[in-house]
C-alpha cells in the first residue's frame, strides 16, 4: 500500500511540476541555509582547535577585557571588551617577561591593515609588531629567509605570511624585497611556512596573510600608540602553569592600579571562550535560517490544502471504491513527506555546493558533519509530517457523497 501511495503521490506531484518545484524551493532554501550556517560554525570551531594545538599547553594568553567568571568555569566573555581599545601596554609585557617563572613574553601589537608591495596596495593584511620569540613560541618555521632576531628590535625588518608574499610580490620567496607600511620601507627578512590556517586568537587573523615587524619598528610607525591585542607568555614549567597564571594576573593588575581589566587564559580556556562566542553567533544565525524553514513548511501546508480541495472528487471516488480514512490520510501524508524530504535532500546537496564554493573562493573552511546532515533530514521529515497532517486530515474526513458531487 505504501508503494502505491508513493506512486500516486509522485504522479500527482509530477502533474503539477511547477507548483511542486516552488513548494520544494522553500524547504530547499531553509535546509541549505541551516546546514551552511551550522557547517560554517563547525568550521570556525575546527580552525580554533587547530590553533590551540599550535599554541601548546605551556603558553598563557593575556587579553584585554575581563573574563566573566562564574563558579570558576568559563562562563563567557563580555563582548564589549572587543570594542574597547586595549588596556594592555608594553610595560605589562616587560613586567611579565621579568617574572622568574616566565620563559618568554611576546606582545602582538596591531599596527595597520594596509601594506604595499610590488603588486600594489593590499588592505587585507594583518600587520603586527612582535618579538622575535613569537615564531618559536607558536612553533612556526620560516620557509625562506629567517625570522628577525632580538637585536633587530628597531630595524625595519618584516616576516611575512606565505599567501601575503604571493599577493604582494607574486613570488613565493620575496626575501630581500621591500614592503611599504605607513610610509616606511621594510625589508622582507623571512617568509613563514604555510600554516594550517589557524586564527591568531583574538586578532582573528590568519598567519598566512600577516606581516610581523619588530616592536621597536612598530612603535616608530605608530608614534608609540601601539595597541596590544594580546600578550603570549611561555612558562618554564607547564606543570606549575596555574600558579604562574595567578602570578601573571597579580603582576599585570599591579600595573593597572589593581584593576583586573584583562584575562589570563590557558590554552583550554582560550578555546573555550572562542568556542562559546562562535557557538552563540552560530545559534543566532541558525535561528534566523530556521525561520525560512518554517516559511517553507507553511508553503507545503498551503499547497497541500489547495491540492486536497482540487482533488475532492478523486477522494470521493477512492472512498466509494473502499479506501478507508486512514488510507486517504496516508496518501496525502506521503505526498507532503515527498515534498519535504525531497526538498531536504536537494537542500543538503545545495549546501554541499555552497560549501565547495566557500572553500574554493574564501578563507573559510566549513565542515558538514554527519550529525548535521542527520539533523537536516530529521528536520525536513518532521516539517513534512507536521505541515501535511492538517491537509491530510481534511482529505480523510471528507464526506464521500459530497466529495463525489464536487468537481
Amino acid at each position, binding site marked *: *500500500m505504501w508503494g502505491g501511495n508513493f506512486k500516486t503521490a509522485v504522479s500527482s506531484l509530477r502533474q503539477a511540476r511547477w507548483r511542486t518545484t516552488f513548494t520544494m524551493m522553500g524547504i530547499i532554501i531553509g535546509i541549505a541555509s541551516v546546514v551552511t550556517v551550522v557547517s560554517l560554525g563547525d568550521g570556525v570551531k575546527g580552525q580554533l582547535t587547530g590553533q590551540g594545538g599550535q599554541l601548546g599547553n605551556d603558553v598563557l594568553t593575556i587579553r584585554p577585557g575581563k573574563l566573566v567568571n562564574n563558579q570558576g568555569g568559563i562562563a563567557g566573555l563580555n563582548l564589549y571588551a572587543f570594542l574597547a581599545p586595549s588596556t594592555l601596554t608594553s610595560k605589562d609585557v616587560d613586567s611579565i617577561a621579568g617574572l622568574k617563572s616566565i620563559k618568554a613574553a611576546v606582545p602582538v601589537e596591531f599596527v595597520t591593515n594596509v601594506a604595499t608591495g610590488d603588486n600594489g596596495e593590499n588592505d587585507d593584511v594583518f600587520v603586527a609588531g612582535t618579538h622575535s620569540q613569537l615564531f618559536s613560541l607558536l612553533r612556526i618555521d620560516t620557509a625562506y629567509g629567517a625570522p628577525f632576531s632580538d637585536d633587530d628590535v628597531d630595524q625595519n625588518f618584516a616576516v611575512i605570511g606565505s599567501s601575503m608574499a604571493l599577493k604582494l610580490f607574486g613570488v613565493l620567496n620575496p626575501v630581500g624585497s621591500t614592503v611599504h607600511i605607513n610610509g616606511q620601507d621594510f625589508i622582507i627578512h623571512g617568509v613563514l611556512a604555510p600554516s594550517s590556517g589557524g586564527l591568531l586568537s583574538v586578532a582573528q587573523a590568519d598567519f598566512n596573510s600577516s606581516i610581523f615587524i619588530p616592536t621597536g619598528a612598530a612603535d616608530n610607525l605608530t608614534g608609540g600608540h601601539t595597541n596590544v591585542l594580546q600578550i603570549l607568555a611561555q612558562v618554564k614549567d607547564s606543570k606549575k602553569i596555574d600558579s604562574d597564571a595567578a602570578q601573571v594576573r597579580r603582576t599585570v593588575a599591579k600595573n593597572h592600579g589593581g584593576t583586573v581589566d584583562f584575562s589570563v587564559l590557558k590554552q583550554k580556556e582560550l578555546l573555550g571562550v572562542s568556542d562559546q562566542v562562535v557557538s552563540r553567533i552560530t545559534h543566532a544565525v541558525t535561528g534566523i535560517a530556521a525561520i525560512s524553514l518554517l516559511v517553507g513548511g507553511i508553503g507545503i501546508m498551503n499547497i497541500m490544502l489547495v491540492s486536497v480541495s482540487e482533488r475532492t*472528487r478523486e477522494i470521493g471516488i477512492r*472512498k*466509494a*471504491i*473502499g479506501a478507508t*480514512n486512514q488510507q486517504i490520510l496516508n496518501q496525502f501524508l506521503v505526498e507532503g513527506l515527498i515534498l519535504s524530504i525531497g526538498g531536504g535532500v536537494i537542500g543538503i546537496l545545495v549546501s554541499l555546493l555552497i560549501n565547495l564554493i566557500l572553500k574554493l573562493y574564501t578563507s573559510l573552511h566549513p565542515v558538514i558533519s554527519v550529525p548535521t546532515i542527520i539533523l537536516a533530514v530529521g528536520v525536513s521529515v518532521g516539517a513534512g509530517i507536521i505541515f501535511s497532517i492538517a491537509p491530510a486530515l481534511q482529505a480523510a474526513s471528507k464526506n464521500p*457523497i459530497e466529495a463525489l458531487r464536487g468537481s
Partner: protein
Amino acid sequence: MALIELDDVSKLYGFGDATTLALDEVSLKVDKGEFVAVMGPSGSGKTTLMNVIGLLDKPSHGNYKLGGRDVAHQSAKRQARLRRDEIGFVFQFYNLLPRLNVLDNVSLPLAYKGVPPVRRAKRASDILELVGMRDREYYRPNQLSGGQAQRAAIARAIVNNPSIIIADEPTGNLDSHDSRVVMEVLSDIHHQGNTILMVTHNPELTRYASRVIYMYDGTIVGDERTKVGEMAKHARRIFFRKPRATDDDIAAGVSAILKDIPGEEVTAKPKRGRPKGRKRTVRRTRSRR
C-alpha cells in the same frame, strides 16, 4: 434470507424549516441474484437510496441489513471495508481516476485490500478480458470512448467479487450503441448470479431487469417483477404519460400544484409538469446531480 433488507429507512437532509425528507420510511428486500431497476423522477430519492444501500450515506432512521448483518450503524472504517469487499459502484460519469491507466484504475480496490501488485494486475487483467477491454489496459481514461470508460468502471466495480453492484444511471451519458454494450455487460454479470441495483430513466432498460421499483417523493410507490427481456408494464406509462396539469394550471403556478396530489395508484410526475416552487429545496439537497 434476503441479501439486502431495508426496514423503515428514512433519510433527512438539513434542519429546521429547510429539512427535506429524501427517504420516507422505505422498506425493501432484495434477494441474491436479482437485477433491480429503480425508476422515478428527479428528486424522488433514487440516488439517496443507492447511497444508503452502498454505505456511502447513513440512514437517519431505520435499519439496514446486508447479508443478515446490521451495517448502517457501523464505524466508518468497517463501512469502507464493506464498500471495498461487498459493493461495487458504477457511476453515470464513470468516475475513473484520470491520472491512472485502465489497469491501475481497475486494480485500485484490490490495492486498498492489500493484494500484492503482480496478483492484482493479473486479476484486473482477467476482469478487463471479461468486459472486452483487455486491449485497452494501458490507455488513460481520457483516451477511451464513453462506452469503453463505462466498461472499465464496471470492471473496477466487480474486481473484488462484490455481493451487490450499484449502478447509478450507467447509460445516462452514453449513446444508444454504447448503452447497449454496457447493458449487455451488466446483463452478463447478472446471469453469472450477481445482484445488481440500477437507477435508470430509460424504460427500455427495464428489459434487462428482473424487478422494477418505482419511487416518488422518497417512497417506493411501485414494485413490479418482470421477466428478463420484457419491458416493465408501468415503466412507459408512468414516464411518458401526458402532463396532468392544464395550461390554466401552469398559468396559476403554485395553486396548480396543490390540486395535483398523488393518489393510491402508481403515480409519477412527468418531467414537463414537474412542480417548481415546492420542490426547490428538495432538488437542491438531494444527492442527485
